[in-house]
């Protein structure tokens, strides 16, 4: 038997092969390939309409791909809802955060997965346990809040983002997908959220970060991939590229590397 082509390279945690997605006559994704290693932070860039969000919605189970296959931890998987993706450990932090502002922090973190026991066919929530679990989890992530009983609507944008990330990682997530997590934040809160992403990496969680901000990408990512018009356009470890080159990719141009070598990140 011949050894597989990628022998020697570590098997990716999450891989998508030849993914296409059609919406009627529109081709949102055209044979896109994607891979993500364990503990890797991958930046995904592209102009509006490049297909980033569609790809992420496919990976998180919100959309089904028209063609192609998804492989998680070596096994082909098929998600029919975000619930399926969650079950294998893929979580998504939505751009609008998807938090219930009228509920306290701890309830948001465990919403839909409340700890508790069964009584007459109903799940009776163990609120004390839920509170304790939430406090411990937030401590682990070094997220500081006054109290887990605070309603989410009382929190700042950065704190809300942190709660959304805490929810995504509450149950041994292996991949966390984040859609523009810093876009709506005040400058002083951006750093905290980025440090949170670094913290996830230290815990062995893989992160996919969609962002327009080169500062974010170059601060936390290990690798960056660019989509352009629904196709793979470029893909490089961060150390081998520059901000200006990545900005070029977003606009669909290549070869800025040499001309702008002074901008190389060391």
């Amino acid at each position, binding site marked *: 038997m011949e050894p597989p082509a990628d022998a020697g390279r570590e098997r990716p945690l999450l891989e998508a092969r030849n993914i296409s997605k059609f919406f009627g006559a529109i081709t949102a994704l055209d044979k896109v390939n994607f891979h993500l290693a364990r503990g890797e932070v991958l930046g995904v860039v592209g102009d509006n309409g490049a297909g980033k969000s569609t790809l992420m919605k496919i990976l998180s189970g*919100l959309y089904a791909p028209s063609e192609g296959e998804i492989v998680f931890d070596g096994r082909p998987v098929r998600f029919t*809802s*975000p*619930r399926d993706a*969650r079950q294998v450990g893929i979580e*998504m932090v*939505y751009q*609008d*955060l*998807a*938090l*219930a*502002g*009228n*509920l306290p922090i701890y*309830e*948001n973190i465990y*919403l*839909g*997965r*409340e700890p*508790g026991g069964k009584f007459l066919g*109903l*799940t*009776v*929530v163990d*609120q004390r346990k839920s509170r304790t679990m939430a406090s411990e989890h937030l401590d682990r992530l070094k997220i500081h809040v*006054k109290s887990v009983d605070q309603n989410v609507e*009382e929190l*700042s944008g950065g704190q809300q983002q942190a709660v959304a990330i805490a*929810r995504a990682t509450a149950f041994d997530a292996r991949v966390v997908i984040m859609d523009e997590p810093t876009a709506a934040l005040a400058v002083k809160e951006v750093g905290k959220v980025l440090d949170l992403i670094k913290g996830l990496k230290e815990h062995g969680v893989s992160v996919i970060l969609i962002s327009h901000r080169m500062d974010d990408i170059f601060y936390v990512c290990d690798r960056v991939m660019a989509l352009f018009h629904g196709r793979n356009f470029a893909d490089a470890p961060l150390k081998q590229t520059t901000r200006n080159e990545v900005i070029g990719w977003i606009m669909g141009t290549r070869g800025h590397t040499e001309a702008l070598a002074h901008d190389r990140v060391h």
Partner: protein
Amino acid sequence: MTDHASATARNQNIARLVERFGIIGVVVLMMVFLYALQPEYFLTFANLTNILKQIANNALLSIGMFLVILTAGIDLSVGSVMALAMMALALANADGWPWAIVILIGPAVGALSGLVNGLGLTVLRLPHPFIMTLGTQFVARALTNLISGGAPISGLADPVRYIGAASIPVPGLDPGMAIPVSAVVMLICYVAVALFLNKTSIGRHIYAIGGNPHAARVSGINVDRVLVLVYVLCGFFAGLAGLQLAGRTNSGFPNAGIGAELDAIAAVIIGGASFFGGRGTVLGVFAGVLIMGLLRNGLNLMNVSVFWQQLLIGLIIILAVWIDVLRRRASVRK
């Protein structure tokens, strides 16, 4: 923590206390006021149980309406559904059905109507519950008239009347002093709904759906299933209210409950629930029901015309929501 921060925290705690129990203060104030006006009558056992009997019907409709309003919905059909349930059980009783089945007919007709509302909302995807329940309001009223030929039926079997008309004597007290069964049923329903909303995961999901339906959906909550359940429960309570009213009036009449949905909405809103969903407590709803009941009782005792009662209730609705607007504006983060 700085002094300023702790002062802010204290203010927030006070605001939260006022939010939670302020409405009870209003009820107590009203009772004190009514006692001052009618010291020899207001606090008598007969008058207090009378108030409980009077509010029981609106209380049952309101607790169902509250569940629906928590999800940012509305159920305009509860008055008609109550009449349909009442008429159906009165007809079954007149046909000589056993009482044990007759008393189940009311709540069952209500729950079934609620199921229709819920499915219309989630399966037909009608744009707003206002539309679906406006439709079923007409349909249920029409069915009430069709099955009865528009004529009332009076005279029900005693066991059927139990929930609406019977009283439980209190041991050791004068036999004339007895607790109305309708009040007991009402209290059981309120405690059950409070436990359901605060302790079970589905109860918390109802709040979450009212707060942010998108968040609920991506958290893996089956939003449609919860919504159907909420409308079924609302219908169930309307049916129970039909059974209670049938017992109290010893009849079924096709014009029962016209406009009752508006009283229920009023009680829920006066009780501090948000029309936009996700906010409100069972205790608040009970206070809202009591405020409306006390107002009617007090004005009746003072021989004030029913027209003035309507005017006052209208003003109180506006005042209650305005206070809520002010409170929210004050608690917004600076």
